[in-house]
């Protein structure tokens, strides 16, 4: 029986395991050469406020906490068990978890269906049968775990995930490596996360189950999926379709090259890319597919923090002509149009900007370098224009325009949140403008991305999302 058939039972348990009051670490260790050490470090240093119970029959205390020989010996109830013992020892531990009433398990241990030895797959089939019988959600095996930044629990073997910015993006990944790639890029680029979940071998918790759970998770605004391959991809599409666009889903599907293609045959034997089927199925499910990890993060950040884009007419405001041109090219590439300003807007801009440069869209604000108030006035005129559905704001630092970022920060601190999406790009020698950018980024309906091209691509994806969900 698939978990989706009995989703109620699983969803309640998943909610408890992602917000645990108590966590047992089976295979906890004080030896940095063991993953059990790093899992303990993640819990102890990651701000977890519940109780942690190390399980290790060979120790009396671990990380200054009393160690237990078995999960059975713990006096309290246990919401989440993180298991890091060798594969052969896992089954009896799972039985203990079931008897103890554990709500959910993160099975970090490797040595299951991912190994060439068929014993691994047999062992995984065995634990899957038990887990289904007990309605016990198991994330893994062969996973790095998960981190819930909103619930402040790091149930993974990488403590530094706790440094990720907190927000509304939840990443569900088939690869732990991808979580490490995206997680640390998210720190560098200020993408706010709710949950990062490594599905590993997907014992009985697959993408469809996580999407069902996150759809009702008030801490998640947008789901980002990294998919390599699935046994039952239709389940994901069907679950996504039932959401009916209530919570956006982005997907990055790997394995799209000719080598992945050769497995399937159609017509001349070279046509049917399985990836092409995924693309079509994603569209049927209202899932937005993206082409790379950068696009996944940029789009997730924009969807998480910005108002929806309800039209494809964009205003491009640039403090220099070149980056504005680049953004216009990228807009064209991503099916966005340059908005025709209303006469009111054009008059306001003409009052603020000397006739030394292009004053209609894209607006070259170069002549206003020394006058950040004029730049804010132009920006506000464009935001207020009903013909403008979204705004790209580009500013490259020059010594003469140094005051811009601080003035813009003041403006945003005082104004109401934007009702239409605005994506900004600053380029400046660190640390100039950095603090002001950080203060504005992801607040009041504004996000920053590193290049003009990426601002346009993210805006284009807001428009694709609008169409996918239409």
């Amino acid at each position, binding site marked *: 029986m698939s978990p989706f058939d009995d989703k109620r039972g699983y969803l309640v348990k998943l909610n408890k395991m992602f917000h645990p009051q108590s966590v047992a670490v089976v295979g906890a260790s004080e030896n940095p050469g063991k993953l059990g050490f790093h899992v303990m470090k993640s819990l102890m240093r990651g701000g977890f406020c519940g109780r942690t119970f190390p399980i290790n029959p060979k120790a009396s205390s671990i990380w200054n906490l009393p160690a237990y020989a078995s999960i059975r010996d713990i006096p309290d109830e246990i919401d989440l068990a993180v298991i890091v013992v060798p594969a052969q020892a896992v089954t009896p531990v799972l039985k203990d978890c079931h008897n103890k009433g554990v709500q959910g398990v993160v099975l970090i241990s490797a040595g299951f269906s991912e190994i060439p030895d068929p014993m691994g797959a047999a062992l995984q089939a065995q634990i899957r049968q038990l887990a289904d019988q007990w309605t016990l959600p198991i994330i893994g095996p062969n996973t790095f775990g998960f981190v819930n930044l909103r619930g402040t629990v790091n149930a993974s073997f990488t403590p530094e995930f706790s440094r990720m910015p907190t927000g509304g993006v939840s990443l569900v990944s088939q690869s732990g490596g991808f979580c490490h790639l995206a997680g640390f890029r998210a720190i560098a680029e200020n993408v706010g996360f709710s949950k990062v979940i490594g599905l590993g071998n997907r014992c009985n918790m697959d993408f469809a189950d996580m999407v069902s759970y996150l759809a009702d998770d008030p801490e998640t605004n947008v789901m980002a999926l990294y998919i390599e*391959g*699935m*046994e*039952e*991809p*239709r389940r994901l*599409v069907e679950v996504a379709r039932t959401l009916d666009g209530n919570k956006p889903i982005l997907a990055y599907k790997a394995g799209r090259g000719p080598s992945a293609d050769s*497995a*399937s*045959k*159609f*017509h*001349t034997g070279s*046509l*049917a*890319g*399985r990836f*092409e*089927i995924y*693309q*079509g*199925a994603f*569209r*049927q499910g209202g899932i937005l597919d993206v082409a790379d990890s950068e696009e996944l993060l940029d789009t997730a950040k924009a969807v998480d923090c910005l108002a929806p884009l309800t039209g494809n007419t964009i205003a491009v405001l640039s403090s220099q002509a070149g980056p504005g041109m680049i953004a216009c090219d990228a807009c064209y590439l991503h099916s966005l149009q340059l908005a025709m300003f209303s006469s009111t807007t054009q008059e306001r801009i003409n009052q603020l900007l000397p006739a030394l440069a292009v004053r209609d869209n894209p607006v070259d604000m170069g002549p206003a370098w020394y006058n950040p108030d004029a730049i804010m006035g132009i920006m506000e005129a464009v935001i207020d224009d009903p013909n403008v559905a979204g705004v790209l704001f580009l500013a490259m630092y020059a010594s003469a325009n140094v005051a811009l970022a601080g003035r813009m920060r003041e403006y945003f601190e005082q104004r109401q949140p934007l009702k239409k999406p605005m994506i900004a790009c600053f380029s400046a020698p660190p640390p100039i403008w950095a603090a002001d950018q950080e203060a504005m980024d992801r607040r009041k309906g504004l996000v920053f991305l590193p290049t003009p091209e990426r601002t346009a691509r993210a805006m284009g994806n807001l428009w694709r999302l609008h169409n996918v969900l239409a």
Partner: protein
Amino acid sequence: MSRPGKSIERSLMSMDALIFLQGQGLPILRTMFAGQMSEALHAARKIGFPVVLKISSPHIVHKTDVNGVLLDLRNELEVQQGFERLHDGVAALRPDAMLEGVVVQEMGRGTEIIIGALRDPQFGPCLMVGLGGIFVEVMRDVAFRVVPIERKDARQMITELKGFPILGGARGRETSVEAIESLLVQVSSLVNTFPEIAEMDLNPVFVNAAGCWLCDARIMTAD
């Protein structure tokens, strides 16, 4: 989609596939088999000129590779000469092949598209649409969906083709996008009705302002 008393028991090529699909309510170009020249002339008169002649042999899959197709024959004389030319030419190139006769078909007009169905090991039954010829073969300009599809899915499949402007009336061509949508929905339910269909090619399908018509087809069963 009506299902006759029995299932599809073997793969169906060209004429057999077209007859089956016509029975399922799919639009087909008028097509007749002719074993002899007199039958070909009769068929051409009945269908109306211009017509197309195609060699019919169980041993020849790719008819164009052996010059086995003659287009746009406008009168009885051209059909008569064409029948001989086709027969002698193919016999010379493929002496091993048994030649049954020719298929006489109404000349298709409009833009060529291709519709396919397959069973993906992971997704199960899927549907594909693409523009014909080099668009599919070279550009890989195709769109897939999993079966069943709704009319909205069919419309999205067509509009997301890079070559959609060609269907949408570029260069003075006019095509009925609604007719393609209907055909895609019909094929989707056909694939659901007959699970024994492992793979199906409708290639080409002619589309013009009045509708769309299957020109050739093949249906592969599971074994």
